[in-house]
């Protein structure tokens, strides 16, 4: 259609340079466009990062200096915010960090274990009802969690699990996170089918095939699962808010929230300091595990 619209001679004349320019424009282009593109991208990036940088810089400023100071370099360095913030709540802050860590570690183990098992069955085994179950699993991907909230709360409270980490941990051992199953299914399907056959000929049962042959090949998918579980569990606010009342058991997000109750200008510095402490592990995991994160969302659309 484009051909019809353009004058007969033009495609040949205009087409050739355009064809070369296209991939190149990308890589080299004219210096001007390349530069302006980078400039815009850098500016956008700066705007994106500015709140985080400001947070970090403010955590080193005396509380009185924090506001109305747009600059990122503290005029007066003040490291006491960290010491003050660490002890500002009922418990020293490392208690909350450890609490979060407990929930996170068990959640990661549970998710990897249960989702890998389910994914192996879906991706590489034949049994009646597999397709139906798989469809059901995909259906739960779209099911908003709040529908289950009230009955689950009732069950947990009747089990006497309120004020324990069990409601936050146990569901992860039951493959309730369909995203991770889906991710691992995609990954396992890509492995050659001959692997299973070879293992079977060598006398491996399904479980040993899974454990010795498939699982070691799935390390990248498990890493993605681990990192995403880490980040979402570390940030998780609603679950702990619902199930944890005892302040000694607070996870990091609940503890941070408690800073807001003790609001007052003098507390801003310490609060920002502890905010930095709380997001530092996420940024660390992000930098260490970028490859897995980007691959993970690219294949499943995970957040």
């Amino acid at each position, binding site marked *: 259609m*484009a*051909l019809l619209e353009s004058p007969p001679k033009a495609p040949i004349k205009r*087409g050739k340079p*355009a*064809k070369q320019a*296209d991939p190149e424009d990308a890589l080299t282009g004219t210096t001007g466009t*390349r530069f302006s593109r980078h400039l*815009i*991208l850098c500016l956008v990036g700066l705007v*994106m990062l500015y*709140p*985080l940088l*400001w*947070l970090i810089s403010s955590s080193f400023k005396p509380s009185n200096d924090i*506001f*109305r*100071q*747009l600059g990122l370099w503290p005029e007066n360095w003040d490291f006491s915010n960290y010491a003050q913030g660490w002890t500002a709540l009922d418990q020293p802050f490392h208690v909350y960090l450890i609490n979060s860590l407990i929930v996170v570690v068990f959640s990661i183990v549970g998710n990897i*274990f*249960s989702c890998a098992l389910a994914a*192996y*069955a879906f991706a590489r*085994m*034949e*049994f009646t009802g597999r397709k139906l*179950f798989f469809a059901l699993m995909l259906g*739960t991907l*779209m099911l*908003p*969690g709040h*529908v289950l909230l*009230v*009955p*689950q*709360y*009732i*069950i947990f*409270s009747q089990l006497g699990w309120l004020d324990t980490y069990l409601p936050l941990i146990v*569901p992860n051992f*039951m493959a309730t996170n369909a995203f991770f199953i889906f991710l691992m299914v995609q990954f396992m399907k890509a492995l050659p089918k001959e692997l299973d056959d070879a293992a079977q000929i060598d006398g491996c049962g399904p479980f040993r095939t*899974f454990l010795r042959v498939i699982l070691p090949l799935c390390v990248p998918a498990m890493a993605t699962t681990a990192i995403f579980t880490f980040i979402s569990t570390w*940030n998780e*606010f*609603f679950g702990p808010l619902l199930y944890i009342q005892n302040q000694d058991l607070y996870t990091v*997000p609940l503890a*941070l929230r408690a800073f*807001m109750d003790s609001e007052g200008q003098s507390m*801003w510095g310490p609060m920002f300091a502890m*905010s*930095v402490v*709380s*997001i530092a592990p996420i940024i660390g995991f*992000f930098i260490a595990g*970028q490859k897995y994160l*980007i691959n993970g969302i*690219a*294949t499943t*659309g*995970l*957040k």
Partner: protein
Amino acid sequence: MSVLTKQAAGAAALPGRGGKPGRAHGKRKNQRSGYLFLLPWFIGMLFTIIPFFASLYLAFTDYNLFTEPNFVGLANFQALFEDPRLLQSLKVTFIYTFVSVPISLAVALLIALVLNRGLQGLAIYRSVYYLPSLLGGSVAIVMLWRYIFGNDGIVNGFLGLFGIQGPAWVTDPEFALSTLIVLNVWTFGSPMVIFLAGLRQVPAMYYEAASIDGASRWRQFRSITLPMISPIIFFNLIMQLIGSFQTFTQGYVMSGGTGGPADSTLFYNLYLYQKGFTEFEMGYASAMAWLLLMIIAIFTAINFIASKFWVFYDN
């Protein structure tokens, strides 16, 4: 075609297979271990399906967690539509969703298109833009937002440089929600990464052919890029809508749990939490949950129907 050959192969193999008991035995064994592998998932499904129907039942009861549920028919649903705070929470959630989702998808697509031109330093830009989407739901960042947009915060400080007196963003009911919309747009990185992955899949030869034909950039975008990535746009749209309808932490932390000022950040799920877990009206909260489920289902269905007209599937 591959299906055909497979069927043919299966048919040919069938008579031979029937005669071998060993093989049948092996298959049955596989059958059993398949269920064994799915055992945790089955338990998890019970833990999903039972609460699913239990909450449907509770939606028709009056239940406060301490006495037996009392069947009240449609009373909860009638009450829902007469509850001004519920209507307010729907309004807040809708405004938030229908403003922030299109903006963040548009920004995500735009940036992905620019990045996809093969600029140097793609990985760095991608990381920088993606990082906020990992932090957007964290308490630390929502609290930070509260201070950035505070009366003496840096946003007003910045506006002050131009002699503009900014409003009290967080405490003014007119502006409080907009700060959270900005926060949501700030997390455009995750749809952006999905767009980038989708753009990579568009075969380069299409563009080559189009530019030989003399198609302009804009024309190429409209006639090649857009149709080719429309399934990805659709996917992002659905996931962002579902996620955005369920926003909780942002409203809770921004308003200290109240949904204020003047209920301007009273997200649906925040109100549901207040009803269910501070006022212990579990029946009412269940009815709310089902209403939202139906709203999400309707929007998803509309999207699926509408997608027939704008989503293009290559095969």
